[in-house]
């Protein structure tokens, strides 16, 4: 979308990296690159929060540092608690520093997760269903739905684990959930869309540690709306996700009660729908 756009130069030490890190996505806040970990045979994800020249330099450093550290703290905590997220391999919140005091932004080196994002899996499945729904019998349809229910339930387990660890994600969409490719892949069935693999939560750029039902409920609500708007055929199966959530998280009852309130409030319905 921004063809002539040039990302800012990489902060130290990644100017040394050979081959150079490859830019994958450019968000408002951060740039995501693929590179290698500290072991050249193992890939890694590199997230860079570049300096924002529109801000006052003191404010810029304070915010950039705060945010990258907050993200890293959440990830480290989740790894410790055994929740599936990319592990933190290395971190530098002070950017390049050095000679001219140049401040290039902060970076976070993370474990590389190999696999598709759930958004793509659901999109492919929905496309297949749309194309073939007329030729499927009831039993096949139910079997296919069962597979998606299974996936949603595993997503629910992941979210339950996240909330149990006292972290809220802050930006849950199906683009921020991945399926880690299993070592040996099984038969994807007639659709050709595999739903195997461990569900991994990614992009904790807006995450925080919170003990509030409200924050957890908003997490679920945002995901529910995101599924509703991007995966209409999967939306009726959202209950399976909540089932998984209940199974993995003891506090689910009060969070789900709050979710009902949040749904009614639906402050930004028109924007998401």
């Amino acid at each position, binding site marked *: 979308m*921004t063809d002539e*756009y040039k990302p800012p130069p990489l902060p130290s030490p990644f100017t040394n990296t050979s081959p150079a890190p490859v830019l994958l996505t450019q968000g*408002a*806040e951060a740039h995501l690159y693929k590179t290698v970990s500290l072991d050249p045979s193992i890939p890694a994800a590199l997230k860079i929060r570049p300096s924002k020249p529109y801000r*006052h330099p*003191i*404010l810029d450093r304070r*915010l950039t540092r705060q945010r990258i550290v907050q993200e890293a703290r959440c990830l480290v905590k989740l790894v410790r608690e055994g929740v599936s997220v990319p592990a933190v391999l290395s971190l530098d919140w002070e950017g390049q520093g050095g000679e001219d005091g140049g401040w290039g932004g902060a970076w976070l080196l993370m474990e590389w997760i190999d696999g598709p994002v759930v958004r793509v899996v659901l999109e492919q499945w929905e496309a297949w269903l749309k194309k073939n729904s007329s030729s499927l019998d009831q039993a096949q349809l139910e079997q296919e739905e069962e597979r998606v229910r299974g996936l949603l339930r595993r997503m629910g387990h992941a979210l339950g684990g996240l909330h149990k660890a006292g972290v809220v994600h802050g930006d849950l969409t199906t683009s921020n959930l991945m399926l880690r490719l299993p070592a040996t892949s099984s038969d994807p069935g007639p659709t050709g869309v595999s739903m195997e693999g461990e569900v991994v939560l990614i992009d904790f750029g807006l995450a925080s540690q919170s003990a509030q039902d409200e924050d957890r409920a908003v997490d679920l609500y945002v995901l529910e709306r995101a599924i509703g708007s991007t995966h209409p055929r999967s939306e009726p199966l959202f209950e399976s996700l909540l089932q998984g959530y209940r199974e993995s998280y003891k506090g689910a009852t009060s969070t789900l009660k709050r979710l009902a309130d949040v749904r009614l409030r639906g402050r930004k319905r*028109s*924007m998401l729908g």
Partner: protein
Amino acid sequence: MIGIGMEGSANKVGIGIMLHPEDGSEPKVLANVRHTYNAPPGEGFLPKDTARHHRAWVVKLVKDALKEAKVTVDDVDCICFTQGPGMGAPLQSVAIAARMMSLLWGKKLVGVNHCVGHIEMGRLITGASNPVVLYVSGGNTQVIAYSSQRYRIFGETLDIAVGNCLDRFARTLHIPNDPFPGYNIEQLAKQGKRLVDLPYVVKGMDCSFSGILAASDGLAATYGLGGSEQAKLDAEKSALNTEESQDLDAKPTRADLCFSLQETVFSMLVEITERAMAHVGSKEVLIVGGVGCNERLQEMMGIMARDRGGSVFATDERFCIDNGIMIAQAGMLAHKMGLNTPLKDTICTQRFRTDEVWVKWRDD
């Protein structure tokens, strides 16, 4: 087609007359007159007093506008008025005038959403076709993007508007309300050098200003910088043009607080705007509303947009600040689509969300 626009949702009453040539060429502003109600320093404008002001001025302004535009009542096709959002009593006083004119002259009424007025005027003046819009004023703070005939709100304030935050801090410091408090804060901020720590509250694409205001007020109280005495000292100092010694351990000055407040709240606004731009894949940004006149905000937004390979559009105070022309512009677009407001539906509403308006005149 000629339309009259009548605005009075806050402390300005404005009448604009606009021509949309039949051949589809560029719309023309025929008249743009306005009068502002200013409360004394240290005070805000109250609904009752503001409404009284609007009632006193509206007839004269309509007459002036017709004279300036060199048109007669017969030339006018529709009467557009602000239906909301805004302060109840001032909105009503202008709406009553609009209804009366409509009945007297037999013209159609068009109720206009104030925010949509700002957006349409900004698009017209700047030529930005499909920008992400930052709407910032004393009553509103929204990040808006167009999609399928609605102006959708991507982010907004969770409590007070950014302009309200600035205005109220101006009151704390007894900064004059004339021409408007934000302008005077901006001038004072130019002398500020030191950034003091203030809360920075962005949640996704939303933000909050009440904590920042409380913290700024708190600092002003701690350092004894509030009140009319300090304001007088400041005025005397700037008259003598004395430079204060820049001792970093010294307590912050009034200018430092204004500077820090602006730097903090504007960074938040630019951040949520950038997030919306990344989200919808837009490279244009349009700033509208009274706070949009602030040159530091425009500068910061410009740097952000440039780094994304895009550009910023802003208007000067003739159009940034509430005016009748913007109401005429948005109202006439609706009128052309046959969207008029029957008399019985012309009740004003203090809460009127931007995304409630059916933007029938756009089909992109």
